[in-house]
């Protein structure tokens, strides 16, 4: 699986778990990018505007009310200053992804389901950085599955089963 070679980008990763942020730092920096980690600060959209990352990677299920990653994502897309920033959602919330498939597609958000294959995440990051947000399409990275969606053409060679 080829990952577009576009190094040196600034990637903002938002997650409420330190271990995940550490893991993502190793992945992102291994790809040659620079990473800013946010442990959790969904209400502060101004920080995104200030940082102006080339890409945001976040989980949907964050924070005390558990959907604050989703709230942040909506704010990012609603703000004129941040609406074009590519976003990769990395989450285990398969039902949420299924429910929001239309919104994700309309807003050019790529999805990688947990647990993920490293190549799939790397590929999603590469693709999101490569494509302008306005033309990118929402899609699950190859090998990821969502119930109710025809994934027959996707690479499922790793044997992952649909999640519910």
């Amino acid at each position, binding site marked *: 699986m080829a990952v577009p070679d576009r190094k040196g980008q600034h990637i903002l990763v938002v997650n409420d778990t330190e*271990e995940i942020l550490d893991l993502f730092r190793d992945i992102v920096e*291994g790809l040659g990018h620079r990473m800013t980690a946010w442990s959790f600060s969904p209400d502060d959209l101004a920080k995104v505007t200030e940082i102006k990352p080339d890409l945001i990677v976040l989980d949907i*299920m964050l924070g005390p009310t558990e959907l604050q990653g989703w709230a942040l994502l909506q704010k990012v897309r609603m703000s004129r200053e941040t609406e074009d920033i590519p976003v990769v959602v990395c989450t*285990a919330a398969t039902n*949420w992804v299924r429910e929001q498939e239309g919104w994700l597609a309309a807003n050019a958000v790529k999805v990688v389901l947990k*647990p993920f294959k490293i190549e799939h995440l790397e590929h999603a990051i590469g693709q999101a950085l490569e494509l302008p947000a306005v033309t990118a399409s929402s899609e699950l990275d190859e090998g990821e599955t969502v119930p109710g969606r025809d994934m027959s053409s996707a690479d499922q060679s790793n044997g*992952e*089963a649909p*999640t*519910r």
Partner: protein
Amino acid sequence: MERRHIELQLRAVLVTYRIEFKRRDSATMETFRARALSLLDGLGDEITPYPDLQAALRDARREMDGAEMPPTAATDRDVETTEGT
């Protein structure tokens, strides 16, 4: 597959598994665990040259196989968002 990549994959599976284990119900977790184990299986022969990583893989599998599933309850945030849909 280079060693660094195998280490990252092992970490990715274990870290996400441990976090989701605390957050989700047994039905969701069973599916998550099946996918996690499948990813570990995918490392296959690639891990053979690294005895320490083989041991880490065995430990990871043991942890997942031996884990008692969390109760089926409304602790699954994913389920909570989809009730009635």
